[in-house]
């Protein structure tokens, strides 16, 4: 089975403020405020390049952010599931 592709709303729908290593994010479409810990903000930024699966995102993020996991793809997949539950990403 092909890996799920994820997409996020475009960056202009988000307003972010950095607070002590966390990212405070206002999601304009839902009006909800979220607190995000790394690598969630990096995942959203990487999705701005277009929809991707977990492995692709891990590769996109790897240049700028070190994922502390033996299996970065699995770690990203777990964060994607959380972001999906929060309404910040969706499967395409």
């Amino acid at each position, binding site marked *: 089975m092909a890996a799920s592709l994820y997409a996020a709303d475009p960056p202009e729908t988000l*307003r972010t*403020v950095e*607070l*002590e290593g*966390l990212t*405070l994010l*206002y999601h*304009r479409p839902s*009006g909800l*405020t979220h*607190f995000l810990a790394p690598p969630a903000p990096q995942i959203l930024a990487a999705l701005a390049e277009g929809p991707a699966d977990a492995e692709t995102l891990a590769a996109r993020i790897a240049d700028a952010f070190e994922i502390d996991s033996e299996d970065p793809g699995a770690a990203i997949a777990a964060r994607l599931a959380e972001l999906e539950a929060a309404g910040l990403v969706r499967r395409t």
Partner: protein
Amino acid sequence: MNHVLRIQVGPVSFRIGSQWRGPVAQLRRLYSGYPEPDGICDFTVRLEAERLWRRWIRPSVAIRGDYVLPDAAPLPLALGLLAGEMGMNLQMALGQKRFLLLHAASVEKDGRALVMTGHSGAGKSTLAALLGERGWRFMGDEFALLGLDDGLLHPFPRAVSLKNESVGLFDGVDPARLGPVLTGTPKGTIRHLRPNGEALERMAEPAPPAMILFPRFGRDLDPTVREVGAAEAFMRLTQASTNYVALGERGFGALTRLGGAAPSKAIDYAGIEQAEALIDDLWRSA
């Protein structure tokens, strides 16, 4: 409405109407010296009989107005003053859209505002009222109004609601500033205190926020000060706001701006003198 009072409290105007004379007479006395607003008031509070006959038989005051909570319990007429106060709170909590509303007390010194927020019983009303008698300007004990565009704290110096043990702390003030002792309220014994002359004269003067304080009162607590990180402070302030969600992005902008302008501290205290000393120390080093 047979009996009506119109008052201006900081940037907000209220029209309080009642079917009975008593509550409005008490409010008029308590709010003596407050300006009368021009034009149409921002909010209307109506104190009405819960049922037609309850205007005369075991009179029971239902709190109504522009905004209503359908399941709000009516109060006996003896607590009509409290009903008026609760009515004003309710209109603000449900209807205020011009300011980010924080359930917080605020005082000002040296042109800068200190915001105090915490759970019921944390002592913010008592602290603000007491500081207001000791060199600070009292700005409000129930709601702090944060300007959405200017980021300033706007005074909302309503009468202070002193509860239980706090009532005795203000025996020394001019008796004309005190309302009747209200016993058997849902929060125990309550007595209202009109803020002093300076608070009233300067009710149109906002101040930039300089510090956010999360006080915690407990007889067994050791006096301590703790730094509160910006992320924790933001979360606690969203919980302290009644209209953060309703204001959407404007609320987000105002609250993140507040966090950037004012550092946050938490204090534990076991007595009012202790709290005052902690606050003075913090303020001096801010």
